[in-house]
């Protein structure tokens, strides 16, 4: 039962397919006449969709070329099936102008969601990859991804042989004649066509002959080369491919050489012969590319010579900033292990703020530099706030106790975030040193520095802290009042009584309301 149902379905589908193999003449009833989908006109003087289409269908078969061009252009604006069928017919027009207009309009249909799935129709479009007009070949090859679903449909086909009906399966691959056209297309005189076909050949389930691939890897147009290098993995072990890539490793276009470097890096993991390509590029005239190859080799586990490391360092120092190849090279430095430290150190003097910022980060991380203030204190004098912030984020919470000289260097900094770090450092500094240093920080012009100092004093219980905190409750800066409040609340023995005295003495002070709430929460009656 199931078998018969399936057979009936296949027959029904085949009838449809048969009918589509040759597009019928235009019939207005093909149009979707749903009034909502195609309201008739914007103004009263305009014709209906049906009338417009009918006129266009007459014009597209006119004897006048100009009329046919006009109709082909207009039909692009009506993305409906009937219109697509007329345009497919027009692709066989003897005039290239009509064919151009038709293919551009068909692309408009595809863009508007009017897709064509019937293999016979799609094959007629695809066959235009051999059109004598280059503009049409370009359009069709660019359209390949949209044609593929219809082009590579597998299914059943019905034939009549000597009056006998024969069914046979239709494979999901290109028809043999179209396959031949596509293979020839790889050698099309126009580089855009070659590029398009090459880019989409996997989706067409085509395999390029290795010799053709070698020829494409020697293409005159750098854009074709870039695409070929993108697609070469399938052919990496084919004869001649490695040799050809070795040749284009010396290409005049630096973008191509950079792509060769990337391709060789990717292939070298599976095909060790490609490491030789990277080695051959270590002397590339472009220092960016030679540096890129060097770090790729390091990533593959090869040890670099001092000269190569020096070259990388020089290249990065000469860059205007961290972008493109420079960023790739920089990110690859970690593969150099300990050898990278000196490179990072030299980059901390780079003219680009972003480069200095990442270089300081890497340098401090690789050397545990946060333990050595002499390493990072110079970074905090950097003119770029992003660099200073990056260094502060790296060392914050990791530094040890500072010496007097180091603490004074931070306190005398012109940058408030650095002085705030000095205040944070009071948490770990020698007590005598804190007693000497905190006054300078308490009179700092920046509120954050003063608030941080208060918190450090409270944590360390430095002599006189209670008095300082009690006074600070009347500071005009709310952050400082809050820091003083927190400090006093943290000491039930002397801090809380002092706070109780304060709220009783200054019930209307700005901080008093909050202080009362905090005291109640702790079980005190303010």
């Amino acid at each position, binding site marked *: 039962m199931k078998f018969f149902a399936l057979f009936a379905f296949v027959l029904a589908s085949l009838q449809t397919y048969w009918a589509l193999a040759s597009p019928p003449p235009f019939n207005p009833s093909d149009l979707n006449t749903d009034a909502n989908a195609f309201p008739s006109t914007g103004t009263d003087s305009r*014709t209906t969709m049906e009338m417009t289409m009918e006129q266009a269908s007459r014009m597209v078969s006119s004897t006048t070329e100009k009329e046919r061009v006009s109709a082909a252009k207009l039909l692009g604006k009506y993305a409906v099936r009937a219109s697509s069928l007329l345009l497919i017919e027009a692709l066989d027009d003897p005039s290239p102008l009509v064919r151009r207009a038709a293919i551009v309009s068909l692309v408009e249909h595809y*863009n508007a969601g009017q897709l064509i799935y019937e293999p016979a129709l799609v094959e007629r479009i695809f066959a235009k990859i051999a059109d004598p007009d*280059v503009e049409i070949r370009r359009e069709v090859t660019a359209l390949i991804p949209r044609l593929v679903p219809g082009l590579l449909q597998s299914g059943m086909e019905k034939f009549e042989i000597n009056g006998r009906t024969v069914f046979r399966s239709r494979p999901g691959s290109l028809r043999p004649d179209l396959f031949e056209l596509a293979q020839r297309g790889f050698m099309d005189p*126009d580089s855009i066509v070659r590029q398009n076909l090459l880019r989409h050949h996997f989706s067409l389930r085509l395999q390029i002959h290795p010799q053709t691939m070698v020829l494409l890897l020697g293409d005159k147009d*750098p854009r074709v080369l*870039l695409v070929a290098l993108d697609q070469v993995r399938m052919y990496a072990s084919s004869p001649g491919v490695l040799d050809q890539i070795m040749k284009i490793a010396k290409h005049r276009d630096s973008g191509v050489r950079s792509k060769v470097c990337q391709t060789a890096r990717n292939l070298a993991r599976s095909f060790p012969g490609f490491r030789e390509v990277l080695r051959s590029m270590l002397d590339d005239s472009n220092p960016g590319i030679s540096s890129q190859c060097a770090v790729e080799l390091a990533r593959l586990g090869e040890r670099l010579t001092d000269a190569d490391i020096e070259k990388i360092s020089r290249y990065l120092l000469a860059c*205007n900033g961290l972008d493109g190849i420079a960023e*790739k090279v920089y990110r690859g430095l970690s593969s150099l292990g300990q050898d990278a430290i000196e490179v990072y150190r030299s980059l901390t003097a780079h003219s*680009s703020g972003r480069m200095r910022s990442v270089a300081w980060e890497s340098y401090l991380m690789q050397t545990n530099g946060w333990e050595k203030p002499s390493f990072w204190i110079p970074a905090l004098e950097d003119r770029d706030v992003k660099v200073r912030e990056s260094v502060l984020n790296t060392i914050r919470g990791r530094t040890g106790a500072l010496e007097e000289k180091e603490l004074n260097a931070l306190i005398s900094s012109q940058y408030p975030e650095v002085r705030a770090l000095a205040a944070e450092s009071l948490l770990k500094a020698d007590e005598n040193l804190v007693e000497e240093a905190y006054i300078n920080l308490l009179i700092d012009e920046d509120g954050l520095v003063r608030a941080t100092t208060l918190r450090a004093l409270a944590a360390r219980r430095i002599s006189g802290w209670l008095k300082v905190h009690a006074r600070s409750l009347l500071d005009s800066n709310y952050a400082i009042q809050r820091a003083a409040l927190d400090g006093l609340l943290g000491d039930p023995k002397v801090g809380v009584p002092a706070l109780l005295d304060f709220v009783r003495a200054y019930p209307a002070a700005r901080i008093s309301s909050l202080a009362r709430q905090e005291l109640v929460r702790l079980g005190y009656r303010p």
Partner: protein
Amino acid sequence: MIRFFCLTFFAIGCLPVFGESASVIPSFGGSSIRVMQFRKASSSRIRYPDALPSLLELMNEQSRASFDPDPMMIDTFLDERLFENPILYLNCDELPDFDFSEEENNALRRYLELGGFLYLDAGIKASFLGADLGHSYAAWEERIEVRQWFEVLFPERIFTPLPRNHEIFRTFFRGLPDNDYLKLEEEQKRLPDTVLTFVEQEKWPQATYSFVGLKINDRLVCVASPICAMGWGRDEFGAWIPPISFRIRESAEDFDETLKLASFSGETYEVTREDGLKDVIYSMKGNRPLWVREPTGRWRIFKYYSGEEISDYAHSFYARLGMNVFLYALLN
């Protein structure tokens, strides 16, 4: 302000050695010129993030100017670094709104008066484009939000269209990209015939575009253009990203009659042309605009072309135009 003068002097110093085949690695080892990019902290739309860094890199490759390819991002005009750098770039499509505090407007006004230059990319945007950010259209007036913002900044000044012979269009590159620049063989078609004709004669004649500008003390301090950044991005191998397609006006034998009567259900929009007259754009919701009625009574259809050659050409044009704008800003 001293820094402005230094940078201008520096840029002028490097002009004589400008040339399309200039050295790949800039010879300036010292500090590079930093271009600022404004993006509000609340902005959730980042448009073409690779664009400006790519363009700056390209300028370093093709001229001997030395730009830091990493733009300095600022999110308020009160940023103290504003006055240390002469060029500010702003993509209007990235702004969630054009609301700025009085202090910010004062700072920007002062910046422009003291020698700064503001490039408002996507500062022109035809109304029919709506929220579709992937389009540009050569309208000849600033977008309404920009106009309202500048009425607050400079109440006595208005944007005016830049003439086709303005120096900004030929500061460094002149003319449209040829086959040599596009790295095409001499006999190879760089564009389909109809597209090339339209581009050369109407879309970008002599490599110009629809720019409007605002002058203070006879100095051009701000320009607004349709979105150009979409044409600046390149990947690390020098290939352009993302793809760009062209909207071309095409005519045919009987379009004046046919398009007047052809079935249409949608909206019409008026867009200002270079000559101040209005085009009427016919557009259906969810579709690209269909056709246009020009003030002469002529009807033309919009056709859309895409493909590698179209995209490469458009990118090359936008990048050359962008370079011209930034180098003009440095020199003036």
